[in-house]
């Protein structure tokens, strides 16, 4: 190798090598130290784990690469019909274990990816989500009413798991009462590794969920009802309709995205607020001015979806790094969100941070399509907890974080106590029945292009 080559940098040879398993304890417990080290030494590193892949953590480097749809592919070519790429998971899911399943449009490239997004955006845009606000308020109210008189809550099980799940069901056009069938397997399959004692049970639940979902999809195909499922089934993808398997993958992507990430954000933020009561009181009393900046800061700091994989689709040199076709890349949204060259004091939560251009929803054409749902749901839950349980206290010994944060930085349980309060209305089951009626009668799950009015809920 010449000195020139060495300087312009092929990180695989010049020493910017790391060896980091994102599923290791080290990644979870030494996250801040590792971020600082990589930013200083190797913002674009060659990670020797998982078959070797680029590991991008520098904010600038990530920004310059992640938006390059011309040189990156999300394609999961499960039948080896194109170039055999492996989608967005690193380590890759072995093709033989996929059973032909593609994880929805986040594992596709344009134009198909764009066709799906164009079909679904009118259900998920800010204007579309605003119509659901009364429903989000009501699910949240009912969840808190279930526990408000007892003085104790598990913020994950009793609130943050339920509100996003029920809302997602409503937007999909699936029965609200089915939320429980989807909720546990969706969360548990993220944090239960193969081989763990609970794995078989979670697998059984997942099989049951897939069965129920396939059945619901058939039902909606035969008797269309408004919602995201119908939009997927009738989408025009390059002149044809998706087959059953592809539609199932897309709907599972919407469920996975809708359920686990907002739960993770909410649990972490509530835990942080419990341990910073002064900041909690400040957020509560200055809600109007801090609501948005605090939400973006919690998104930055806790980055629920920690990163995404890609495959380099053509040889390219960016900022002096030469990427080769077929090589895999991990885009670390979470670490780039801690880069001190962009964020002052990056490992500190500052609820009034300005210029907070975090990458927690991803960057470029695959930007999280549910970001507006996530923000609205998160803000509603937070405001309700601050109002109705202002003195909540979390016991650090009983909070359970995911064992591995290599994909989602989430929590399994977050028990808390608070001064009991009074119920405001009906419990969850009764509320869901009422909401189901409103969803059906007012056709709330239509896209905003068809129905512009907000939901109206009578008491």
């Amino acid at each position, binding site marked *: 190798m010449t000195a020139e080559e060495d300087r312009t940098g092929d990180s695989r040879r010049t020493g910017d090598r790391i060896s980091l398993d994102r599923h290791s304890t080290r990644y979870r417990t030494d996250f801040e130290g590792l971020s600082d080290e990589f930013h200083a030494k190797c913002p674009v590193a060659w990670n020797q784990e998982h078959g070797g892949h680029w590991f991008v953590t520098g904010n600038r480097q990530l920004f310059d690469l992640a*938006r390059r749809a011309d040189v990156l592919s999300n394609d999961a070519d499960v039948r080896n019909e194109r170039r055999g790429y492996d989608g967005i998971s690193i380590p890759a899911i072995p093709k033989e274990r996929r059973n032909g399943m593609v994880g929805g449009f986040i594992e596709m490239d344009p134009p198909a990816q764009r066709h799906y997004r164009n079909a679904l955006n009118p259900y998920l*845009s*800010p*204007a579309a989500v605003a119509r659901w606000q009364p429903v989000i308020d009501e699910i949240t109210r009912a969840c808190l009413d279930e526990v408000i008189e007892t003085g104790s809550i598990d913020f994950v099980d009793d609130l943050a798991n339920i509100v996003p799940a029920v809302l997602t069901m409503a937007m999909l056009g699936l029965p609200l009462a089915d939320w429980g069938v989807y909720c546990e397997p969706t969360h548990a399959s993220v944090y239960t590794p193969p081989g763990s004692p609970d794995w078989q049970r979670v697998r059984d639940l997942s099989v049951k969920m897939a069965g129920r979902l396939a059945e619901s999809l058939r039902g909606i195909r035969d008797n269309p009802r408004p919602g995201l499922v119908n939009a997927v089934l009738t989408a025009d993808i390059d002149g044809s309709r998706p087959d059953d398997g592809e539609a199932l993958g897309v709907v599972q992507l919407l469920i996975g995205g809708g359920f686990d990430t907002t739960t993770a954000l909410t649990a972490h933020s509530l835990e942080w607020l419990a341990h910073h009561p002064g900041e909690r009181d400040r957020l509560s009393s200055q809600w109007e001015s801090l609501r*948005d900046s605090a939400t973006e800061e919690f998104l930055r700091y806790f980055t629920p979806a920690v990163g995404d994989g890609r495959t380099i689709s053509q040889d390219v040199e960016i900022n002096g790094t030469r990427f080769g076709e077929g090589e895999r890349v991990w885009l670390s949204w979470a670490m780039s969100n801690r880069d001190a060259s962009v964020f002052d004091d990056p490992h500190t939560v500052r609820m009034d941070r*300005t*210029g*907070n*251009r975090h990458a927690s929803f991803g960057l470029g054409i695959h930007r999280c399509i549910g*970001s507006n749902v996530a923000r609205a749901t998160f803000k509603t839950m937070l405001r309700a907890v601050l109002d109705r349980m202002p003195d909540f206290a979390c016991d650090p010994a009983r909070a359970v974080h995911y064992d591995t944060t290599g994909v989602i930085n989430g929590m399994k349980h977050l028990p808390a106590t608070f001064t009991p309060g009074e119920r405001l209305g009906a419990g969850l089951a009764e509320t869901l029945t009422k909401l189901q009626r409103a969803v059906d009668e007012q056709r709330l799950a239509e896209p905003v292009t068809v129905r512009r009015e907000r939901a109206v809920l009578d008491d």
Partner: protein
Amino acid sequence: MKVRVDGAVCQGHTLCAMTAPKLFVLRDEDGHAQAVSEEVPADQEELAREAARSCPEQAIVLF
């Protein structure tokens, strides 16, 4: 000061409208942003700068 959103770069993160609601509107269908008008009123210049800094895609052009 003038402002423009580069439609080819914007991905609808909505930070701009959150930061400067008087300067940016989001399309109903997909939440992508447009400037309400090219001219930034004098009392909105600071917010325009803050919106440009906050945009994750750096799609906001001030000129």
